[in-house]
């Protein structure tokens, strides 16, 4: 990444789950105060705030100035607040803008907050809000839910890789087992492959327990030119919009973002010690292995058979439990992925600690436009101390 160095100075969160008595403001404030405390700083030390949320307009009756309303109650006033909406990648988009703001030299220490409140007493209303994260002129009114988008994408992978139901059940079980020791996670009970198999079909081959759940939650980071605990540095911050697929060589959106990130970092996938990837449905994790270069095309089945992506494997993926088990409060997700990476690199991940982790990647995608996610974000963090 060009410009001044950017460090993760502090992390904070409100656990993900169902919190009917907790407002969106309270979720966001809890996470923000947690990040400030972790950084040993006060709100008055912040030079700007970047706030991510996707659906407060549709679900919480707060269309505009979301971040300003969240943070006023913790004493923020006078500094710039920028609100970011980029579907399921809103959180990582906010982190990206915050990194650019610090790297440019215009701001020294900033607060990033991602928050979402999706339980509003009407699941249909929440699902309808999620469906807005696409070009609604094209994808509205055709019966297309995101579970079906993912089912079709997974089927495209199945046509090229020797993976099927068993691999999908395993990756779901794996991520649930990872989430057990994650205090942020919505689901902290292990499940078996048989339980996954017995859950009802949503969009073939996606079953209910493979889907990330509706969730309330918030996540926050303090980013700064000054290192914090562990000296966790942002080595790459890359964002890509959906490409026009004008020829056979067009790369997928996540691959474009990953390649940019590898180039910025001067690293390759072989240098990673762990990764958080966007498993909005758990089988999509397998698809992302190859999109992000974690394994080659045609190698997904062997990567799974080797259990490479489980804790203890050569490249643990979604040690937090991923979207599937940690939960997916949309605006918070991309920020929460980076919290997991920072904790791992600091050596603070407890029972799910990846020993010796020094370099880690997060991939977060959002929405759908054309033939790809509307936005794909990839960050690479590195331990420098």
């Amino acid at each position, binding site marked *: 990444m060009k410009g001044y160095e950017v460090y993760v100075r502090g992390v904070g969160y409100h656990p993900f789950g169902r919190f009917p008595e907790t407002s969106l403001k309270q979720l966001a404030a809890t996470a923000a105060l947690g990040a400030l405390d972790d950084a040993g700083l006060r709100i008055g030390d912040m030079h700007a705030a970047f706030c991510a949320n996707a659906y407060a307009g549709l679900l919480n009756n707060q269309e505009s100035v979301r971040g300003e309303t969240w943070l006023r109650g913790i004493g923020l006033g006078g500094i710039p607040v920028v609100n970011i909406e980029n579907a399921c990648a809103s959180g990582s988009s906010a982190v990206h803008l915050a990194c650019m703001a610090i790297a440019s030299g215009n701001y020294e220490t900033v607060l990033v907050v991602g928050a979402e409140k999706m339980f509003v007493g009407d699941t249909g209303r929440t699902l309808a809000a999620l469906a807005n994260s696409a070009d609604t002129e094209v994808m509205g009114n055709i*019966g297309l839910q995101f579970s079906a988008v993912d089912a079709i994408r997974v089927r495209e992978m199945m046509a090229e890789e020797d993976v099927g139901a068993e691999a999908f059940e395993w990756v779901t079980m794996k991520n649930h087992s990872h989430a057990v020791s994650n205090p942020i996670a919505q689901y902290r009970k292990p499940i078996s492959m048989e339980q996954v198999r017995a859950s009802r079909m949503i*969009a073939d081959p996606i079953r209910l327990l493979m889907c990330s759940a509706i969730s309330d939650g918030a996540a926050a980071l303090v980013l700064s030119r000054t290192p914090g605990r562990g000296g966790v540095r942002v080595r790459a911050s890359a964002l890509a919009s959906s490409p026009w697929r004008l020829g056979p060589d067009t790369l997928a959106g996540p691959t474009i973002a990953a390649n940019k990130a590898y180039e910025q970092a001067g690293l390759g996938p072989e240098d990673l010690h762990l990764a958080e990837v966007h498993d909005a449905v758990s089988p999509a994790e397998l698809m992302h292995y190859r999109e992000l270069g974690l394994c080659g095309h045609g190698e997904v089945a062997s990567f799974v058979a080797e259990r490479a992506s489980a804790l203890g494997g050569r490249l643990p993926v979604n040690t937090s439990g991923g979207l599937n088990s940690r939960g997916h409060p949309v605006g918070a997700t991309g920020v929460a992925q980076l919290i997991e990476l920072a904790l791992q690199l600091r050596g603070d991940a407890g029972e799910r600690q990846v020993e010796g982790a020094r370099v880690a990647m997060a991939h977060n995608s959002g929405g759908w436009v054309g033939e790809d996610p509307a936005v794909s974000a990839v960050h690479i963090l590195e331990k420098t101390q």
Partner: protein
Amino acid sequence: MQKTNPTLFYSEGEAPGAPGLKGSRCSGCGRTVLLQVAACPQCGQRDLEQVCIGQRATLGESAEVFHSADGFEAPYFIGTIQTAEGPATFAPIAAAPGTALRAGMPLRFTLLERPDGRVGFAYAPTEQSA
């Protein structure tokens, strides 16, 4: 007649070759893309002809969906389709529950009367499925 996706498809008589999807053909490079766009994504030319495309298409991957949405009663099929002119998109596939669809099946555009009285669209296989 009210359409579900008025910017996405033409019904009969709205354009030469209709019904079908709305597309744009670049007068500069000849590229055809979905929807009526303001500039060609390939060459940047702003002189684009509005055309009806996708009367014929090929099925990509598809999924049987078991949760009703948008007035589509589960189970139903949705898939990616590639139009004969090139552009690809998602579309409802008009096939009976349990049908064994396969990638590469030829499809034709069809208008679909929806439960709310509007007119939508789908793609129907033109050959018997396995």
